[in-house]
């Protein structure tokens, strides 16, 4: 990997990390959802500092061109994150529905003077 590219990616990742942590610090982002981004970010920094790891893992699982492995894992991670968000969103929708129902029932109870 070209040293210029390496430095560029590392600096971007560090800026990104600072950005995320600052959001958490201001309580605008919940650590629970940010954790996976922080870990991916740190993983990218490590891979960038030691690009040999990419070659090693690619050889290990039999991917001929290491860069393909980077793309492959990039896509896999995105699928995992998007899926977990979908799951979270479904649960949120269910919770909001239950809250709305509960409020409606309470209001009804209150108005009928019980």
């Amino acid at each position, binding site marked *: 990997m070209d040293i210029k590219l390496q430095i560029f990616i590392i600096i971007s990742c560090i800026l990104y990390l600072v950005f995320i*942590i600052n959001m*958490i*610090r201001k*309580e605008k982002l*919940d*650590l*629970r959802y940010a*954790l996976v981004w*922080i870990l991916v970010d740190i993983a990218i920094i490590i891979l960038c500092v030691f690009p040999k790891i990419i070659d090693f893992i690619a050889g290990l699982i039999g991917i001929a061109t290491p860069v393909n492995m980077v793309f492959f894992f990039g896509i896999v991670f995105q699928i995992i994150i998007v899926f977990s968000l979908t799951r979270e969103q479904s649960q949120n929708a*269910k*919770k909001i529905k*239950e*809250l709305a*129902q*509960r409020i409606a029932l309470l209001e009804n109870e209150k108005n009928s003077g019980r």
Partner: protein
Amino acid sequence: MKQEQMKKLIIIPAYNEAKNIKKVINNINDFASDFDYVIINDCSTDNTKEICNKENFHVINLPTNLGIGGGMQTGYIYAHENNYDIAVQLDGDGQHNAKYLNTMLDFLINENLDMVIGSRYIEGRGFQSTYMRRFGGSILSLIIKFVSGTKIKDPTSGLRMVTRPIIKCFSKYYPQDYPEPESIVNIVRMGYKVKEIPVEMLEREEGVSSINIFKSIYYMIKVSLAILIDALKPKKEDKSLWI
């Protein structure tokens, strides 16, 4: 203020504690009858709600499952809105004994503290938890010491008593996922005084604790990071903002 005039509330977070909740309330009636209590039923899927209603226990039923953080915060909001001077968390699984509550209260008043934590590890008696959990706990202790300068031997203890200003803080912001260690750091960094007192805890009798190896690793990473990020928050030194 005299101890007898204080309004004191026990907050009992309960999720699927149908088998334990009766024992917990009996224990409170035996040893801490001058405390009010409220059970926060975090949308249990067993018949915790039915048992509480049948026995006429004072219970707040959450309409959706909020987790321990959101549940406890509900209790603190209740305490704040009803002008309680003291609030104490007592887990609904029966591992905390109410006989310590008055000792904790005396300690809180005599030492002029803002928060007292019942610690399993000071005298090392009673149920001591597994080696892995103790190891995790001591790492968290180190991190807390590092960012706040206060030594807390049992940072994951759920037996904790707080005063009115902290009730107000917690009713506004309380960590959601694994709140115990993180909330200690928040409190210490605001300039409040926190100390521990030795207690014995029991192993939970019924039901299962929801801890496995992956969850433990996730827990450690998350809580450590949360504490470190909290250390970057601006210090809220001016207590008057919060009272």
